């Protein structure tokens, strides 16, 4: 196990190095830089002023040197300065991380809290009216564009309640925070719960056909014991994989939700930063998302060992 952990750690480091090179290179390959964007806002381009700005921001340095400055700074905890706000990158990113994290966790909670039990219910009541209804719900969750659903929610609130559940001021307390994030989390969680529901259902159906389930029933185990203790605990492994993937996706994938509900999280900030070619923000934020993703996948892999004693890592 120890050697597995060491191997995975080295692999994670290699992955992150590769990611840093890819994101660095891609940003420089995309046409235009911050100087172009800033001059765009001023309605003109002055080549001399632009060159001076690029010199000031280090964009005139050789590319490998720019990469080296960034990576060496990152390893020392110096994330540089935002080209747009001219404030430390850390100060721009740090307050947004908890916002997206809370939204993502709440969305994950909704998706698991609804997806898992509904998947079990659907599997246990296979081919019943309830099963069909739940499958329709899950299909709509997968089909409805999240942007459309989010806007529909906002329009419904405005039309029916005369209010709009968007972020305009930081919430004062935990309850306000929960209420503020609940609706966008539910909008995102709807899609994820649909995916989890369908996967749980198919996984459960496969497991419930196994001999040991028949044996458990024959021995007089209750329905709950059969479904949850014997079947679900074995059916949940592939679902855990999906939950892990969804969790990692959520960090960067909340862009639509954050835009429509006006939540100042990292996903929306990342897209803005890309549009502004704010390299320090984009590079460091992508690395953060990369770290979260690789760590999440690693934790999911370790979770397998806990869930299935047959799995051993060497």
């Amino acid at each position, binding site marked *: 196990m120890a050697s597995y952990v060491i191997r995975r750690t080295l692999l994670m480091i290699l992955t992150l190095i590769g990611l840093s090179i890819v994101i660095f290179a891609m940003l420089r390959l995309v046409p235009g830089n911050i100087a172009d964007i800033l001059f765009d806002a001023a309605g003109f381009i002055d080549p001399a002023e632009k060159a001076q700005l690029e010199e000031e921001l280090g964009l005139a340095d050789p590319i490998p040197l720019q990469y080296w400055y960034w990576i060496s700074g990152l390893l020392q905890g110096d994330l540089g300065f935002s080209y747009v706000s001219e404030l430390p990158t850390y100060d*721009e990113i740090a307050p947004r991380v908890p916002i997206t994290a809370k939204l993502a966790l709440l969305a994950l909670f909704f998706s698991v809290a609804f997806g898992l039990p509904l998947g079990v219910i659907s599997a246990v009541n296979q081919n019943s009216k309830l099963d069909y209804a739940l499958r329709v719900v899950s299909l709509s969750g997968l089909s409805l564009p999240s942007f459309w659903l989010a806007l529909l929610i906002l329009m419904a609130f405005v039309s029916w309640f005369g209010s709009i559940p968007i972020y305009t001021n930081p919430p004062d307390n935990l309850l306000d925070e929960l209420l503020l994030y609940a609706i966008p989390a539910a909008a995102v969680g709807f899609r994820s719960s649909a995916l989890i529901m369908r996967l749980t259902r198919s996984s459960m159906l496969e497991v419930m056909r196994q001999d040991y389930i028949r044996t458990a029933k024959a021995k007089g185990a209750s329905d709950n014991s059969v479904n949850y203790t014997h079947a679900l605990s074995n059916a949940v492994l592939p679902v855990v994989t999906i939950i892990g993937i969804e969790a990692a996706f959520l960090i960067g994938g909340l862009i639509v939700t954050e835009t429509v509900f006006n939540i100042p999280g990292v996903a929306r900030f990342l897209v803005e930063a890309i549009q502004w070619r704010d390299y320090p923000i984009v590079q460091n934020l992508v690395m953060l998302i990369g770290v979260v993703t690789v760590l999440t996948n690693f934790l999911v892999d370790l979770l397998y060992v806990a869930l299935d004693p047959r799995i051993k890592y060497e």
Partner: protein
Amino acid sequence: MQPRTWLAGLAVVASLAVPVYAAAQQAGGILRVYHRGNPPSASIHEEATYDTTRPYMGVFNNLVMFDQTKTVESLDTIVPDLATSWSWDSSKTKLTFQLQKGVKWHDGKPFTAKDVQCTWDLLQGKAKAKLRKNPRKIWYWNLKETKADNDHQVTFHLGQPQPAFLALLASGYSPVYPCHVAPKTMRTAPIGTGPFKFVELKQNESIKFVKNDNYWKKGLPYLDGQQFTIIKSRATRVLGFVADEFDMTHPNDISIPLLKDVNEKKPDAVCYTYPTNISLNMIVNRDKAPFDNADVRLAMAYAVDRDAMIKILFNGEGAKGGVMLPPPNGVWGMPPKVLSKVPGYGDKAADIKKGQELMKKAGFGPDNRLSIVVKTRNVASYRDPAVILIDQLKSIYIDGTLETIENSNWFSTIAKKDYMVGMNLTGLAVDDPDVALFENYACGSQRNYTGYCNEELMTLFKKQSSMSDQAARKKLVWEIDAKIQEDVARPMIAHYNAATCLQPRVQGFVRKVNGSYSDWRMEKVWLKQ
């Protein structure tokens, strides 16, 4: 003296010292506004968008400003701001301002004439400190020197008479900056003398301003502050306004089609549907064949059906005109009688025939059509008119395909002349020919995107600028405007309207009918409680 008499006297004296609000205005409250995106910076002098002027104009004062209680911005509606009075010398080339005394910057330092000198030296590139960008440097082509005569008097020395110089100083784009604060700080945490102090900008989230309790205009501002919530999604922000989450929309954010929805859902909203003084125009690369042929360019000007554009894009809420915003809202635009004589502004069927003849003369025709690429920004307000333009050009044997350019590359594409034909939007900071002509058509101007250069017209630009008889000046401006249109320098398509909406409790705000960049001092705006 009897105690009662003494007390009554004291009450009278006290009432003179304390600002008394008129019966209508009420002090207090935070004005909640939505903002469509991060301002590129807080430095008004370095930007050319009301994404910056709208929030930050309240931080500053100008020397003079357009009266915030009047609907028109013109030389006749200029009122004192940091200047108490001004006068021209006999040669009309020296403009001297007497300045307010006792004014302090938000950091407590005193405002003096040196700050005015610093600001205009900065704009002319004469100061040690440098601006990152200087989009209105061309405005001061005629300014030789800015001199602080003493602490409370400053004189602008011009090369030739220029009555409209005052209008440049009155624009929302002409605040006075402090000498002692570096341009970098002004981009991030600006210091002004204005009614509102900058508190903070959280990117993608909000911009906050608080009332300047030591504002030198006693009794103002009425508001306790302004808060701008940054919302990228237009659907979300308009829904927010309808749900009463905001007191005011972003300037011109409510397009005419959207206005119908807003009026239905929020019938008590007060919406000003006025010209934006932003024009749709076509840029044509005169250096690229066949557009170096004047006949081809003129044919294109004939083909554009401006009435149809205005009807389709703006539900008829717009106007045809030349460079200058047409009357009745614009002060300098050509009236219909003059405009109708300009190529492309007559009878459309006849114009199209003329266009076809010109194209045939240039060697094109129904069997030899010209293929072009029309480039424009990848933004709906640019794309939609470009699509219609392509359709209209078909009538004169031109087949266009649309190529959209990402925002970051638009101006470099134009600067490199990497286009044949483009669809563009141009905003005018002030409804004055000195701004419109010099910024967009002067030889060598950075915002003269097509590189149009006509030395004869340049002489006329300078001539109209020096004229003190405004009626005669207007006639000359019409002549210049018509010539520019005939030259197909940058064919104007439409001046369009859009709406800015307020909740009924917002009082004291007056929207200008001929500009979008100078309305935002907000010192006299108040909220009905």
